[in-house]
């Protein structure tokens, strides 16, 4: 049978954002694949060099549309490392709560994501509606549902509003109650098993060789989590487990998500318990209002996002604007090198599953 070239994307229901794969197929099997990024290149790194340190806060959450808070956290943490500023304790705990809430919201979204390419739309309706409850809380906290601009260099913008903690506890109870239903409906579903088992398999050696982190790596049996191995914020003061699986396939990656949500809930509960009262932000550097000058230096800050290592390299030359900011998107290795070298052998109808469960996020690759 002859070889044929087919285009996947740049618009597809199984994708977060616009990303294209040129597939060379024989029959219904992909024999070669070429990633084509760039549809969402908006020049963030250049734009950041032209804006004040604080102005960038309005820009950076947009780099990763589905999980914006990690951008704010990395940017703020890198600046604090350069300026050698200690953030107030309460702000650190609040940041942890925000990041874990964002993880829950994003994992919920992922159930919807897997519903698209497998045709299980009910999971999409459920998870989007439950994620919305998390967004309601975010709206109350920051005034915005998606792009919160809440974590700022030096702390967080404001303390919790009144009665926020009670609402948060209520939400955690609700989500915890929903998880068994998700597991029964999504993870024990015959159709989903048939579609996901043995698809997009990756082994530990390949993950470590090409730099896949996060759930992709943990689904192969390695408990590597940056929150444990290089703890930031106060992750070393709370107890949580790192769920792993051994199969390394799409099903293993999806089934880790509810387990991670459970751990996030555990972390938030501990954070609420340990959190002291006190100030929630501090001055980063001398300067007039928001026109701060960050001292000269370079620092890399990374967090464990839902897709793996997400980091910012920030360079300052002591001026009012960053000299250079480089973003390490978590899905860079699997989204580019992985598509080219690991995707061949997949069937055409499994390609969206491959991209979705590998966590390929176009906006963070393009930046």
């Amino acid at each position: 049978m002859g070889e044929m070239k087919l285009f996947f994307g740049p618009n597809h229901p199984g994708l977060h954002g616009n990303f294209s794969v040129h597939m060379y197929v024989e029959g219904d099997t992909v024999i070669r694949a070429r990633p084509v990024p760039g549809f969402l290149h908006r020049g963030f790194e250049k734009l950041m060099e032209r804006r004040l340190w604080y102005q960038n806060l309005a820009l950076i959450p947009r780099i990763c549309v589905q999980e914006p808070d990690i951008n704010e956290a990395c940017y703020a943490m890198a600046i604090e490392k350069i300026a050698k500023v200690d953030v107030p304790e309460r702000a650190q705990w609040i940041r942890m709560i925000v990041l874990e809430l964002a993880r829950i919201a994003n994992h919920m979204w992922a159930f919807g994501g897997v519903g698209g390419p497998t045709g299980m739309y009910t999971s999409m309706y459920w998870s989007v509606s439950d994620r919305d409850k998390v967004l309601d809380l975010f709206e109350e906290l920051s005034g915005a549902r998606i792009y919160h601009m809440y974590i700022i260099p030096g702390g967080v913008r404001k303390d919790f509003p009144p009665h926020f903690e009670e609402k948060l506890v209520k939400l955690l109870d609700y989500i915890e109650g929903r998880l068994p239903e998700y597991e029964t409906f999504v993870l024990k579903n015959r159709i989903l098993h048939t579609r996901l088992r043995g698809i997009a398999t990756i082994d530990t050696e390949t993950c470590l060789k090409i730099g896949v982190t996060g759930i992709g790596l943990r689904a192969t049996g390695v408990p590597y989590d940056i929150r444990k191995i290089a703890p930031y914020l106060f992750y070393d003061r709370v107890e949580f487990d790192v769920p792993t699986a051994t199969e390394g396939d799409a099903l293993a990656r999806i089934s880790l998500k509810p387990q991670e949500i459970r751990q996030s809930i555990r972390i938030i509960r501990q954070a609420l318990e340990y959190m002291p009262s006190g100030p929630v932000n501090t001055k980063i550097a001398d300067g007039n209002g928001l026109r701060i000058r960050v001292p000269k230096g370079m620092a890399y800050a990374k967090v464990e996002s839902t897709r793996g290592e997400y980091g910012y390299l920030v360079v300052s030359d002591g001026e009012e604007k960053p000299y250079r900011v480089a973003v390490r998107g978590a899905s860079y290795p699997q989204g580019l090198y992985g598509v080219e070298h690991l995707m061949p052998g997949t069937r055409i109808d499994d390609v969206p599953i491959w991209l979705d469960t590998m966590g390929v996020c176009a906006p963070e690759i393009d930046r």
Partner: protein
Amino acid sequence: MMNSMNDASVSQELQKVFEELKSMFGSCEAVHIDARQYKLIVPSDKTLGMLTYLKSIGYSHLSIITCVDWIDEKKFELVYILFNWSNGATFLVSTFIDRDRPVFYTVKDMWPTAEYYERDVHEFFGVEFEGNENCKKPLMLELWDDLPPLRKDFDPLQYSKEHFPDRTYEKDPIHEARIIRGDIEGDIEGGEIDG
């Protein structure tokens, strides 16, 4: 469950590795960023050797390769970020190359994904990586016809003005809309708008 090493012991280990590197490779400078992160400033001819050594002792995860344009010093600074999964320590290996002749060597044989990081750096800074045959293929920017855009001498505003000039309208579309709506009286004969 794995337990993370505490900051003090990681810091000690980083210092130990730095001393080793200094005795093996000679000139090498370290900047202490925090307890878990050191920046190493390495001469360009020693960089590959040092990266190979660091990979062999556990700093095997390459987070990213990126570049900084120090236009006043006429240098590009290449930064390789290496992470050690067993102790949670990070090295930023930085080397300076000539801005007028930006050529370096590829590390894609050590880290396959480096092929894409190098393509990225080539596209946005114009640095060539010898040995990476795909280095010059466009990645994000299709049909780019100007200076590599992350160089400091590239002016995005000017580029945008040249490539996307302001539109001029011979007629005022708001005025015409108000006539159509009947807010004001007037004539819109031949009402095509030049865009």
